[in-house]
């Protein structure tokens, strides 16, 4: 697993894709940060994170689309699948590599609270909880993106599928007002962005941790099953 992780991270660092995606992430992030800060003149990152949660929805599947599709496309899947490594090891190594790239992008965004801290007196609680939530949110996006990549040998298809699934997990929340209480509560709960709101308010609720954690585990498990199916299914 460690070998897979190291090689995958290396591939990211040697491919323009990761740099372009991080640049887009940081570029849009800086735009949101400065425009919101200058217009509201409030030292807080709520608006920034609310926008970036959507941006990441597009960035993450593009980051993960190559993870398995490229192996299929270039024939290196045959090397991995005929080597004495477990599927879970392959999936974990690759997923962690994508997660590290995502964390690097978030690392750059730590400049914003630094600026706020230098020139204002921000309320640190919500900022820290928002960062925590944003990491969980991104980790969920990446797991969904990986699953999409495990479905196909085409990177474009993987990217589009990943974005599609994530958009579905967002707009499902819109149904709740139409469906009323009961079912509405369920769709409300399923929405990835609704779960993120509490983090922005500075609330750390274990139900959100369970929600994101179970989505991550589910999609990674489905990815493992998918690779297994390639071997065992017809």
């Amino acid at each position, binding site marked *: 697993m*460690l*070998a*897979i992780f*190291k*090689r995958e991270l*290396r*591939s990211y660092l*040697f*491919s323009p894709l990761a740099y372009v995606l991080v640049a887009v992430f940081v570029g849009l992030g800086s735009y949101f940060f400065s425009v919101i800060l200058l217009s509201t003149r409030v030292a807080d990152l709520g608006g920034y994170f609310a926008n970036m949660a959507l941006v990441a929805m597009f960035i993450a599947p593009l980051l993960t689309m190559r993870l398995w599709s490229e192996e299929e496309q*270039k*024939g*290196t*899947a*045959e*090397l*991995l*699948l*005929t*080597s*004495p*490594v*477990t599927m879970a090891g392959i999936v974990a190594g690759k997923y962690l590599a994508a997660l590290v790239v995502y964390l690097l992008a978030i690392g750059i965004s730590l400049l914003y609270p630094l600026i706020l801290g230098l020139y204002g007196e921000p309320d640190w609680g919500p900022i820290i909880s928002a960062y925590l939530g944003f990491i969980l949110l991104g980790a969920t996006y990446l797991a969904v993106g990986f699953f999409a990549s495990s479905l196909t040998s085409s990177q474009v298809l993987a990217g589009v599928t990943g974005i599609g699934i994530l958009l579905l997990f967002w707009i499902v929340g819109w149904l709740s007002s139409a469906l009323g209480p009961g079912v509405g509560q369920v769709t409300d709960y399923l929405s990835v962005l609704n779960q993120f709101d509490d983090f922005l308010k500075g609330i750390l609720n274990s139900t959100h941790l369970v929600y994101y954690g179970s989505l991550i585990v589910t999609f990674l498990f489905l990815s493992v099953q998918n690779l297994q199916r390639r*071997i*065992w299914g*017809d």
Partner: protein
Amino acid sequence: MIELAGVTKRFGAKVAVDDLSLRVERGEILGLLGPNGAGKTTTMRIITGYLPPTAGTVRVADVPVPQNPVAVKKAIGYLPETPPLYAELTVREQLAFVAEIKGLPRAERSRDVARAMEETVTLDVADRLVGNLSRGYRQRVGLAQALLGDPQVLILDEPTVGLDPRQIIEIRELIRDLAGERTVILSSHILPEVSQLCQRVAIINRGHLVAQDTPENLARALGRAQRLEAEIKGRPEEIRAALEKVPGVAEVSVGEEVPGRAAGAAASGPGEEDAAQAISAVTLGLAPGADPFRVREDMFFALAAAGLPLLALSAEQLSLEEVFMQLVVEEPAAN
């Protein structure tokens, strides 16, 4: 060492491999021969555990492949048709990566990588990016990574495809050197390659095993149109008369004098003497089913009895190409 029993693989309605049974003994080099799309790659993928068979069992080193894939994968070095390499790694990094995923202990990795590079003569490109290598070198690196961990079994899928003639010869020599104690299965649609490298050939067509034997036996067993070529000293009509009496000979044609070989032709003048001294090239067509060894023996004694010296005799065997064409072309007709 490797045993396939009744292996069948279907992709939807398409049957890629149909009830294939095959045994490869320890230390043997088996050639899988067949036209493109015959099921060679699928068979190899089933042996390596990359694809599960729809039916039938595969055992490598007495371990059933599906039950213990990790142990089997450790025992096999596999070179797919396109060597699975990461373009952004250097040769050394690529091999180090494979050594690691093959689970080699840390202490042995760099030694094993160096050994594999030495065996495949890739040391001089060790620090170049795999993506910048020529096809021949990529193939070598592919072989090197198959050799990591010193597997007992090597599975090589079309190892010389797409190489230039010089590279082909190099890779063939390499495979011959590497085989050593190892059990090797290699696939090819190039016949001379298989007959040069392999002790045994299995011919596959449309997923069926059509024939398997040594390259010589395959040619011999199908030697329906076998011919014998001889050089015989004596009068052509005497030669013809003597040979036509030999059982198993269907056709005798006494050809031209072998040029420059007529013993003493230059010294003696034309006449009786000269015709008796002439050496003729004779071609014998054998009757179907005749035992070519028996015919050669009988022929020798017949000629000796007639006082006609036999100066040279060679059996012209069907080339593997001809055997292959017969098998592959005849098979659809037999269905």
